[in-house]
């Protein structure tokens, strides 16, 4: 008998907003415990939640990127549960009229192309963080994350391998980052995933017993967990090693095992009801069209355009479309200088290096693309040497917008004054007879030493080809 695994995912994504979903507290990650709290997100009685408009914008954006239908009237509901990570004893979420329904994400794996259906996307608040203190035998509560806005993206059970799950999650991440819905950082918990999995006889249309693994936060762990759970289910069915029950399980990546958390007995009894304190959100055509107009070109379409229209290679184009910020800077700089390959090089090498040094990610590249374009043009026109251009780039990183002005101020403009170059060359050659003799004796390196000295003396501001010719001429004379 052959078996197949059936997987559906619930993906939680923290939205890229400044403030929380129902109050004005900061939604920034990484503050000291309970620095970002107020009576509303602490669940104090009598507080009125007020919806952050940007959350609805981003919810709609996510839905449009995933080909969803947008519900023009969307409402919030209370999901009741007692746990101190949400101090009101309920989570405000969407059950009855979520913002988006019936979407589709197209993926590609070694087995070919596939469409994964999206059941719905709903907006909700995140829960706080609990730190269990074994020593003092108590639990410490941090409400910074409480009410940070999330969307939960619920797929249909259309996935049938760990490879497909990874392809789906990568695609989701790429689309949402491109549309600036979220930074989708697994390691910071701004993207996490619940895996619903069951096993059935191949070809059967009946689903098997389903288990859920919650809060998975890395692709490698998700892959291992799916492989483990699939094997466990098949073992239970074939060898009757255990009775499968519908339950939530915790994946322990270190032990490489899943463990039962809670059973069906109490699961799902959340007594949802409409939240009478949060008024319905009605999306009119003007609002809908405004969001539609902000949608970015899809990454793969952009990549194709970069290759076909701008002549970039596969590697450069793929690397650029990894990050929306890279693409934005690339397009601005290209519009300024028209040198696609040069712009790609400057972004993927020099800008990437600077980001690295500052411990920033690609998505944090926030420089004036036009300034970069102008700089690249100065280099291409041989007005500024490449080495000096790197100093100017560092200033552009700090917010500078006029590279030519910086070049003039710093004396970086390449001199076309051959008289000056000849004078410097003559001085250097006269002052270093040993290197001249070495070069004449066949030591190539000695030439480079002389060349370097001249370049330094000229502060990099000369055309290397001109310098080379004049230096060779001077050495011959010496």
């Amino acid at each position, binding site marked *: 008998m052959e078996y197949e695994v059936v997987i559906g995912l619930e993906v939680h994504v923290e939205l890229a907003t400044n403030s*929380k979903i129902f109050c*004005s507290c900061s939604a920034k990650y990484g503050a000291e415990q309970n620095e970002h709290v*107020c009576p509303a997100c602490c669940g104090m009685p009598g507080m009125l939640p007020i919806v952050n408009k940007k959350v609805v914008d981003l919810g709609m954006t996510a839905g449009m990127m995933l080909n969803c239908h947008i519900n023009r009237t969307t409402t919030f509901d209370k999901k009741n549960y*007692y746990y101190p990570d949400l101090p009101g004893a309920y989570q405000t979420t969407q059950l009855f009229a979520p913002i988006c329904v019936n979407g589709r994400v197209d993926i590609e794996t070694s087995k070919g192309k596939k469409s994964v259906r999206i059941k719905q996307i709903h907006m909700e608040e995140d829960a706080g963080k609990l730190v269990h203190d074994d020593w003092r035998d108590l*639990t410490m*509560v941090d409400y910074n994350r409480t009410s940070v806005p999330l969307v939960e993206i619920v797929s249909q059970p259309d996935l049938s391998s760990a490879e497909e799950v990874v392809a789906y999650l990568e695609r989701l991440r790429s689309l949402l980052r491109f549309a600036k819905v979220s930074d989708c950082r697994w390691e910071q918990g701004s993207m996490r995933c619940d895996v619903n999995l069951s096993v059935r006889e191949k070809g059967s249309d009946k689903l098997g017993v389903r288990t859920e693994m919650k809060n998975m936060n890395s692709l490698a762990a998700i892959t291992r967990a799916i492989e483990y759970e699939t094997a466990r289910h098949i073992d239970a069915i074939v060898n009757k090693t255990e009775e499968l029950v519908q339950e939530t399980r915790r994946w322990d990546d270190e032990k490489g095992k899943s463990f039962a958390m809670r059973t069906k007995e109490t699961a799902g009894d959340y007594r949802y009801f409409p939240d009478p304190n949060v008024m319905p959100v009605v999306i009119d055509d003007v609002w809908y069209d405004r969001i539609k107009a902000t949608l970015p070109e899809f990454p793969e379409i952009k990549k194709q355009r970069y290759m076909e229209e701008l002549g970039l290679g596969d590697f450069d184009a793929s690397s650029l479309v990894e990050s929306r910020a890279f693409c934005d800077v690339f397009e601005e700089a290209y519009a300024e200088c028209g040198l696609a390959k040069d712009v790609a090089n400057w972004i993927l090498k020099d800008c990437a290096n600077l980001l690295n040094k500052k411990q920033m990610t690609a998505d944090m590249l926030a420089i004036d693309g036009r300034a970069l374009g102008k700089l690249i043009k100065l280099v291409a026109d041989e007005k500024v040497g490449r080495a000096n251009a790197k100093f100017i780039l560092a200033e552009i990183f700090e917010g500078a917008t006029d590279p030519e002005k910086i070049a003039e101020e710093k004396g970086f403009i390449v001199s076309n004054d051959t008289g000056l170059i000849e004078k410097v060359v003559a001085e250097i050659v006269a002052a270093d007879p040993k290197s001249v003799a070495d070069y004449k004796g066949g030591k190539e390196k000695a030439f480079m030493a002389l060349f370097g000295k001249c370049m330094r003396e000229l502060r990099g501001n000369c055309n290397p080809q001109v310098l080379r010719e004049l230096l060779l001429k001077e050495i011959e004379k010496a």
Partner: protein
Amino acid sequence: MQDLLDTLEKVNQLALTQDEKASVQAYFERVAQDLPSFAEVDTQNVTPMVYVMPLSNVLREDESSQPFTRDDLQKGAPEAEDGYWEVPRLIE
């Protein structure tokens, strides 16, 4: 009725005494007796009323501010230390 009471007790994390149970049950039974009269009302074309006010799109701009300090908020906390609220140990 007993099953319903047991479930409600559980999901609300309550531990009722026998006396309390008896009194809640009596109350629930009284409510249950009145329920059929609601069924007599024709609600075929009536949308359930959730919101008291006829309002929609009560929204705010995405601006952050921090008008309360942590210390203000933790003044009334039974247990707080080192900026954390502290609660009895919970492991799910």
